[in-house]
């Protein structure tokens, strides 16, 4: 066998680079850089990266940590957050996989993350960047506002609850539209929910300033809280006022299913299997690798009740989500507008999620590559927003995993079950949204209507969905 390979190697000048991969793969322990790798064309490198990623993920899912390590080593040669699109994506996915592996050593994982600085200002900046560099939020705002304006026609007292009050622009726009309505502006109250007080204060300042300018009776109520322990009393919904609720990319964090919450946290455990034994690691509260592997296999075959993807009809049972949506229903809003990612990143197995995420984030990264120059801001956005989301999707399980994006049809089912009726978004709203997208200068952005809801796409990939709901009795 060896001679055969050598033959191939000697004719490397004219043969395809991929052929050389096998040669390189042979000697995983050679730390030396593979010169051919550097010379790879972007496309070939991209394909190889995909291959390596899948290989690595498969190893991780199977618990073959040594193999996964080799794959990681190879990917690291090629991936880079500064490179072309595929290189960037690979960099973040690799990091996520590595993080997942590392969780098998919880002590190590905690220690490595113990001095991480998370600056609130940076987090706020990243959200701003997402708002600026992409049109998605703006489209969502335009659609939400239009739905509100239409629903609140004739209403004198309007109360809006914003489940993530971070971007004043949305409500400034609404205030301006409302002030110009023929019947005059209503009394407007906005209740903003956010985890950081500073953000809410800034919002209050901006919105109050705008309302004063336009001489509209206005009140902003800040509620500093996380969503999963939100006290609905604090929202102070009064009788007689027309209530609208706006949720932009928030609900999915509540989707951890009951089963998952009951199970233990770590995705991988240092358990003896496949010849991989990690000596001296105490097994505290870990489900065994065998159990996890079995779980993966089981989910692969059968339709377990908590598999969010095995059948489109079965929704994962999540008491948290049900409770929240029911509480929202209990407020009897006149209108509720939900914006969510329109991808299935809530599969029960790693591979499912990884494959889906590859497609989704490929579209997002492609979009950035096509519309934004390679600036530091873009890098920050990629790393601190998308990188973190990818890490959460891939490396986290149970209650830790917040980025549980689901497809629109699932949201429709859920909300329908909870007693909400779909309100088709108006044509005029979609027209405005379409114009906004055109104004972004790239024809990659597309908007399509799906059963009264709007889906925003990059090329052919659906990325975000906006839907409006009313309380059904």
């Amino acid at each position, binding site marked *: *066998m060896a001679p055969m390979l050598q033959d191939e190697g000697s004719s490397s000048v004219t043969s395809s680079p991929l052929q050389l991969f096998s040669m390189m793969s042979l000697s995983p322990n050679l730390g030396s850089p593979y010169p051919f790798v550097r010379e790879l064309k972007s496309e070939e490198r991209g394909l190889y990266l995909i291959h390596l990623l899948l290989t690595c993920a498969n190893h991780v899912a199977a618990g073959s940590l040594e193999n996964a390590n080799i794959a990681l080593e190879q990917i690291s040669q090629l991936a880079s957050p500064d490179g072309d699109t595929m290189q960037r994506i690979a960099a973040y996915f690799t990091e996520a996989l590595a993080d997942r592996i590392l969780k098998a050593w919880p002590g190590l994982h905690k220690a490595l993350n113990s001095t991480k600085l998370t600056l609130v200002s940076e987090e706020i900046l990243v959200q701003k960047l997402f708002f600026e560099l992409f049109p998605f939020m703006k489209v969502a705002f335009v659609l939400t506002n239009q739905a509100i304006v239409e629903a609140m026609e004739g209403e004198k007292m309007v109360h809006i609850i914003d489940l993530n009050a971070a971007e004043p622009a949305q409500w*400034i726009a609404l205030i301006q539209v409302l002030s110009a309505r023929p019947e005059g502006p209503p009394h407007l109250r906005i209740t903003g929910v956010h985890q950081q007080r500073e953000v809410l204060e800034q919002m209050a300042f901006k919105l109050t300033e705008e309302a004063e300018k336009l001489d509209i009776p206005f009140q902003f109520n800040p509620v500093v809280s996380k969503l999963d322990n939100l006290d609905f009393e604090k929202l102070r919904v009064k009788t007689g006022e027309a209530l609208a609720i706006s949720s932009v990319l928030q609900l999915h964090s509540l989707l951890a299913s009951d089963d998952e919450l009951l199970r233990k946290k770590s995705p991988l455990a240092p358990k003896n299997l496949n010849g991989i034994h990690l000596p001296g690691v105490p097994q505290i509260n870990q489900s065994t690798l065998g159990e996890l592997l079995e779980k993966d296999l089981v989910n692969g075959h059968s339709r377990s009740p908590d598999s969010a*993807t095995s059948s489109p009809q079965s929704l994962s049972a999540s008491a948290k989500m049900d409770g929240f949506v029911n509480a929202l229903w209990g407020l009897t809003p006149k209108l509720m507008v939900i914006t969510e990612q329109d991808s299935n990143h809530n599969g029960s197995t790693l591979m499912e999620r990884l494959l889906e995420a590859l497609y989704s984030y490929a579209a997002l990264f492609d979009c950035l590559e096509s519309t934004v120059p390679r600036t530091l801001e873009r890098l920050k956005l990629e790393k601190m927003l998308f990188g973190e989301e990818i890490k959460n999707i891939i490396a986290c399980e149970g209650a830790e995993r917040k980025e549980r994006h689901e497809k629109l049809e699932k949201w429709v089912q859920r909300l329908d079950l909870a007693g909400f009726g779909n309100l088709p978004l108006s044509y005029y709203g979609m027209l405005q949204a379409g114009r906004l997208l055109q104004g972004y200068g790239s024809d990659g952005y597309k908007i399509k209507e799906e059963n009264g809801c709007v889906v925003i796409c990059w090329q052919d990939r659906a990325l975000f969905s906006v839907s409006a709901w009313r309380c059904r009795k």
Partner: protein
Amino acid sequence: MLENMAEEALPNGFVENPIAGSNPPASKKKRNQPGNPDPEAEVIALSPKTLMATNRFLCEICGKGFQRDQNLQLHRRGHNLPWKLKQRTSKEIRKRVYVCPEKSCVHHHASRALGDLTGIKKHFCRKHGEKKWKCEKCAKRYAVQSDWKAHSKTCGTREYKCDCGTIFSRRDSFITHRAFCDALAEETARLNAASNMSNAVANNINYHFMPTPLGPSMAQHFSSIFKPISSNEEAINQTTRGLSLWMGQGSSQGQESIGNNNLHGIHQLGSVSSGTIFGDPLVSCSNPPPSDYQLNWVFGTKLSSSNAEELTASNSLPLTDVKEAGTQLLSVPSLYSTQHQSHQTPSANMSATALLQKAAQIGVTTTDPSFLGSFGLKCSDSQVRDGNKLCGVLYGTSNPILSTNIGNDVENSAGDLLQVHPAKRRHTMNEESGGGGQTRDFLGVGVQTICHPSSINGWI
């Protein structure tokens, strides 16, 4: 002077509610719709003289004039004169509305009375008065001093200039104009033609997945794309600070950071295409004018604020700021042209989505469900095709003999790493030998290349 309302009752039932925040919390203000007064209100018709009069209340000691009696009374305290503040005459609050004395005016009728004394005064001046206040910079005249002041604050601070030479002070009219401007359309057409030509050339390079000699040429090609933009630290810091002002309401943040402007300048001119941002000032998208109010506000800029730092928007909007922004934008045009090119040349820098689809294609023939299932892989329904295809990449496609042989040897040499799985894989590989031929045919040219993914898999 008092008239009773005899007109139709207007359905304006209002709920009283306290208004905190913008208005002083003490007063309970009932807001009626403009021009539709409360039917219960007391209608007051003042004469033009009374309306125009200012400072009717004079202090007898010093002669100082006041617009309101209450103010005069308070002033009299300073002179140690007896003073009395009038209380409300009746227990109830009788809302007062005012009519315009000008007979030909709409607001002359009680049904269209205005609720605010100051309002009716201003209205009378504006509509029926002489325009005594003149703006210095432009030719506009105003009858009301506050109007004049408001205008002079913004006059000339923001100007949009179209390529055809027309100047606009309002952003929305500017955008509307540009969408229909003939001069602009010509330029756009010219530029598009030019860029298409240059891209056609680049397209031929490496479009198909063919083996090409490796070498320095590749590296060079990439290096121009990978050249990072020298990011201006200053701009970024400013961006950090000022990013909340994307609407251009950067009035409160005085130094409306220019770096900030770069970032949201990019999207501030809503209809500006990315081409404009990257230094192509004449390219604009032929959008239908976003004349709707909301669109403008969502990502437009309001001109009313007193911020002198607001962007001087012109076609080359971001570029005029370049000198202030430092180096950030300077490198952009070159990058854009490269990037633009690369965007048009899929092979040179293929989009990740395209790569994934290609990878899925390569693996398309070997979706053996049991094979996948045995490794716990279950691909989602919605993306089943793609997912399975991608899994197929993993598990090999064709040329089983080559792969199997390599696989065998590799496994031997790779030691005991692959105890459990290889046996299965090898087995399945052999089974697939019959189907190898299909893949070879599938891609036609470049059979070599098809083999290689599998040869990689062979050892894994």
